[in-house]
């Protein structure tokens, strides 16, 4: 049900772009106005999110400790898993953000068939799929910079060369295009196949996956089947950047589908779980050093704790204390 609804929404979005461009002739709307709106929403929304996170204080310094804490010099401490200083935190964060270290730790718990034995085993697939997805997405993103700048950035050219290293087909097949589609397909498949993950999945989990599948598929079609007019696309891209957009009417409608789905993704980003891109940097359980025993940290909103004084205690129990022969302050 969740899957179907999300799928239908993406299909409707694609049809919307086709109808809008083919029948409505709304080239400027789909080619310029909506992308601008989306980028404004993205920048505004994400800034708002990050600022609202950053403004909230961190009253307690309680990073997740996954290893031995730094204490006495002869006890070996785990600098990355229980960092005690900035360098350790930097290492931990770099490994987390660049290599998804926590996911690499992932394990699997299963019940052995026919018995009630619980067995544990390693499980690196999610880590691999996630890494593949994010990195191929990054490369594809950088590759697309060729549509927005003249001359084409050298990083784009470099990655493009590596990506099409095997020089299969004309135009050259980029490996990441298919790695990306495979990774998204895997991430989708595990949501369907694993009963546990299916149970926790919301429409908001399937929707971005279908959106990405749609973007990837139209992208591949545009490059290899439709062979869209890349000069026209670049004119549009450069026009967008220089705030003098020209939306060509000669471009294939699939291009507008591609662009519209990207537009939706960008606009949807700050209002969804996709904000994990920014949140991963700010997560207090990962980006703080565990140095509570070395340095004092004061809670910025420390409140007056309600206390019960000795006087109040004696007031309540004085008679009993006197009877039992316990000395009291006030007879």
């Amino acid at each position, binding site marked *: 049900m969740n899957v179907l*609804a999300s799928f239908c929404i993406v299909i409707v979005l694609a049809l919307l772009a086709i109808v809008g461009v083919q029948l409505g002739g709304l080239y400027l709307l789909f080619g310029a106005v909506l992308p601008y709106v989306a980028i404004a929403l993205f920048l505004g929304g994400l800034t708002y*999110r990050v600022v*609202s*996170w950053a403004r*909230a*204080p*961190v*009253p307690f310094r*309680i*990073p*997740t400790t996954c290893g031995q804490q730094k204490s006495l010099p002869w006890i070996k401490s785990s600098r990355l898993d229980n960092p005690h200083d900035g360098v350790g935190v930097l290492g931990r964060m770099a490994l*987390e953000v660049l290599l*998804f270290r*926590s*996911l690499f*730790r*992932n*394990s699997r*718990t*299963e*019940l052995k068939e026919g018995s*009630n034995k*619980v067995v544990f085993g390693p499980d690196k697939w*999610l880590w691999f799929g*996630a890494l593949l997805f994010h990195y191929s997405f990054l490369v594809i993103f950088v590759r697309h910079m060729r549509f927005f700048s003249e001359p084409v950035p050298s990083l784009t050219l470099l990655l493009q060369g590596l990506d099409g290293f095997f020089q299969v087909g004309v135009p050259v097949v980029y490996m990441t295009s298919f790695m990306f589609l495979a990774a998204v397909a895997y991430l989708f498949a*595990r949501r369907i196949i*694993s*009963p*546990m*993950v299916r*149970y*926790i*999945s*919301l*429409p*908001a*989990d399937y929707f971005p996956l279908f959106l990405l599948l749609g973007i990837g598929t139209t992208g591949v079609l545009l490059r290899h089947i439709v062979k869209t007019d890349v000069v026209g696309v670049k004119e549009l891209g450069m026009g967008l950047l220089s705030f003098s957009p020209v939306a060509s009417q000669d471009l294939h409608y699939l291009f507008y589908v591609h662009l519209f789905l990207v537009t939706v993704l960008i606009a949807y980003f700050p209002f*969804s*779980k996709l*904000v*994990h891109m920014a*949140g*991963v940097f*700010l*997560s*207090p*359980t*990962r980006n703080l050093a565990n140095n509570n025993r070395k340095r004092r940290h004061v809670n910025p*909103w420390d409140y007056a704790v309600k206390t*019960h004084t000795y006087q109040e*205690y004696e007031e*309540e*129990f004085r008679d*009993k*204390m006197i009877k*039992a*022969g*316990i*000395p*009291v302050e006030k007879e």
Partner: protein
Amino acid sequence: MAELKPDEMDYYDQEELVQIDYSPPRSGWMDTPVDFRPGSWIYPGKPRHLEYLGLANPRQWSPTDDDWQLPPNWKEIIFEGMRERLDKYRSFKIFMDCCVRCGACADKCHFFIGGGDPKNMPVLRAELLRSVYRRDFTTAGKLLGRFAGARDLTEDVIKEWFYYFFQCTECRRCSVYCPYGIDTAEITMMGRELLNLLGLNVNWVIEPVANCFRTGNHLGIQPHGLKDTLEFFADDIEEITGIRIDPPINKKGAEILFVTPSGDFLADPGTFTCMG
């Protein structure tokens, strides 16, 4: 045979207890109401302890009651409580926003491994709170409702919170595996604080707290009882060693203050520590 009660050992059938099933129910989690199976929930906090501590809504109630006698403006209390905590804890805010439901934490919780209830997967336990957060605090949740994973706050949601937020030992194992370090311990603590605002507490927590506050020990031993206990210990020491000691209590100008954990007044081997 007399009807067995949940606090009798024979009530539990070993064979039945080890039958664990990790496959989730057919109905979605938002449509599966909580089942207060006898023996699976903790007794609620007694009103006199709440009164002593000055906490909200002291009353006699049970989780199996239909009416939990919440304060009339309970929704507002939860809403304000959540807002206050979102402003006070960056962790809470980020943990509400960032989860991608990848499921890495799902099979890491011992409550889930040992019981198989899908709402004991850390991700879903947090989702119980997150769904309400989305409805009231996020644009997407307000506009798209259930499609964005948002749901209305109802009394059934509160019952669900009570049942599941206390099924967490705050061990933080899930946080180790989470790619964003989302810590269920912090989430269930927030949930318990919110429940506390409505007068929903467990007696295992609230009675020791009230006792400590009132008598300085979690057992609620009053001064004369404490003196008896220490004298009893002194008798034991004399019987075994032949040495009579007279433990001074509340003595002014003493050079040493000896504080023993309050459990040491109650049970072995703590009592030996105290005697020693």
